[in-house]
């Protein structure tokens, strides 16, 4: 892999709080991967020592939706509406951007919520007492994270404060925010059963499926505040922790929107075999145009498997963003996520008939110019899809594989891996 692992070790020997300190002091850029034997995975990205993103790959991980509801910035209904929009355009804007477009959030509120999500996730990961860590220098998020920087000192202070707070909460909520609690069948006889209204609101939402996080989200209260209320209720014997929820993976909505079903590797292999049959530059050019269509077709199928529909202007959006709507005076005809390959082939024939009268050099230049644009368009489609892949290691593997295919397109030697 291209991302060198600079250092690694065990959290039993070197805790996250110490690693965070080291990242800040060293002004490091890269990704810190945390793993537990039970499959739980955490990912923290740094830029120049500042934390820019923290995620846990767990079905019960803290999501932006949780944060927005807990901070009272959006309701469950508003989030569902934004999510529905995203299911119709999975490569388009993300949930937060859609909420901004809908006028529910301001840009500033979205930035604050994203930073809160990272900070709260990091402080939770810092409670891990066992597992491994691995730092990959220069590994970055596929999206621009410059606005999401959180100063290392602020992260450290929050992590230390949170660790201190959980010293008393862990014995009663052993799975942290993922702890499920239920009501005891036999309340302690001596308990007066008098409750503050806030505690009653918590109790009313308790059932065996609700985690601390879910209760906090339903109450629209910060989860640490809710944990502070639930902790004493467990201590008093009124609520009982019944284990933790969550398994390694993405939260349900994120899993639906991820490109886990997109079989990039099979697509690359079939493209390569198809390419090797194309012997003339003209055939190769139209094959490249066809590959863009095959990619979009595979993407549509992957979306369908997840119950999503691909917006009909997804391809034109990608081409527009990259400034690849045409070459010289020719504009690609794009509709319903397909390039009009026949129109393109006709254009190539006409252009080459003209250039053939001129010189061999002009013909070569034509192929190179058009080939380069089509390759960039295909790479842009891959990039757009790859940006939705959750694991950086998989994103990196995907990129290496398609770059290898592009070497075949250019007729370059494959060398050793």
């Amino acid at each position, binding site marked *: 892999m291209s991302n060198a692992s600079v250092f690694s070790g065990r959290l039993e020997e070197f805790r996250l709080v110490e690693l965070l300190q080291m990242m800040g002091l060293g002004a490091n850029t890269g990704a810190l991967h945390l793993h537990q034997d039970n499959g739980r995975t955490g990912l923290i990205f740094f830029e120049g020592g500042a934390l820019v993103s923290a995620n846990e790959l767990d079905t019960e991980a803290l999501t932006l939706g949780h944060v927005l509801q807990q901070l009272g910035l959006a309701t469950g209904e508003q989030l569902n509406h934004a999510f529905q929009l995203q299911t119709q355009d999975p490569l388009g804007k993300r949930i937060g951007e859609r909420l901004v477009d809908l006028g529910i959030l301001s840009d500033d509120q979205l930035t604050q919520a994203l930073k809160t999500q990272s900070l709260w996730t990091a402080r939770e990961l810092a409670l891990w007492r066992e597992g491994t860590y691995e730092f990959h220098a220069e590994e970055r998020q596929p999206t621009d994270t410059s606005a999401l920087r959180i100063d290392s000192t602020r992260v450290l202070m929050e992590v230390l404060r949170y660790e201190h707070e959980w010293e008393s909460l862990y014995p009663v909520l052993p799975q942290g925010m993922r702890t499920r609690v239920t009501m005891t069948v036999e309340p302690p006889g001596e308990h007066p059963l008098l409750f503050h209204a806030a505690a009653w609101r918590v109790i009313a939402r308790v059932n065996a499926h609700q985690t601390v996080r879910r209760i906090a989200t339903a109450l629209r209260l910060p989860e640490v505040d809710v944990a502070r209320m639930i902790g004493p209720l467990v201590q008093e014997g009124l609520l009982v922790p019944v284990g933790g929820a969550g398994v390694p993976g993405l939260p349900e909505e994120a899993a639906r929107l991820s490109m886990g079903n997109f*079989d990039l590797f099979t697509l690359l*292999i079939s493209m390569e075999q198809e390419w090797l049959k194309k012997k003339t530059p003209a055939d190769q050019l139209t094959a490249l145009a066809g590959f863009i269509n095959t990619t979009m077709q595979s993407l549509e199928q992957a979306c369908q498997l997840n119950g999503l529909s691909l917006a009909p202007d997804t391809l034109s959006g990608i081409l527009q963003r990259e400034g690849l709507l045409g070459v010289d005076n020719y504009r690609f005809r794009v509709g319903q996520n397909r390039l009009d390959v026949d129109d393109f082939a006709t254009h190539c024939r006409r252009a080459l008939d003209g250039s053939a009268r001129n010189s061999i050099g002009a013909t070569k230049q034509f192929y190179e110019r058009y080939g380069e644009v089509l390759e960039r368009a295909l790479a842009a489609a891959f990039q757009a899809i790859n940006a939705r892949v959750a694991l950086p290691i998989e994103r990196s593997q995907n990129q290496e594989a398609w770059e*290898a295919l592009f070497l075949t397109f250019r007729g370059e030697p494959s060398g050793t891996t």
Partner: protein
Amino acid sequence: MSSLMPPGDQPVAPSAATTGLLSMPGVPRANGQHSGPRSIMVIDDSLAVRKVIEASFARIGLPVSAYPDGIAAIQALSRGEVEVPDLVLLDIELPKMDGYQVAGILRNNDAFRNTIVIMLTSHDGMVDRVRSRIVGARDFISKPFRVSHVVSIVRTHLRLPSPDGPSR
């Protein structure tokens, strides 16, 4: 050839140019009886195929060593740079020495008696299948392939449990 002969029934004559490559002392222990992690080797002149195979098996925790031709692979084995793999995915149309020759060399070396060879090829003819069998290949995968199909075949040959249940 009249039938798909089981491995071991036909003599194989490796290329004179390569005979002896594996007589060098560096070849690590023969395996096949161990219960530790399995390893795979892919020999294919396509970098895309090598990257795809490496990544696909890395995702299920199987290490892959990858080489663009048989000579490079055999040299690495001879020098002890890589352990004898449990399974080799071997392209037939290789530069320098074709896949049949590579398979023949492996088959004639005792260090590889437990190594499973699976041929990869874009030619899906009966002749290719028969020749693959003759040189000791256990299976044959046509290109273009579905990556999940390759993973499934490898799992079956290595008797690894499938993610959806016990191995077939």
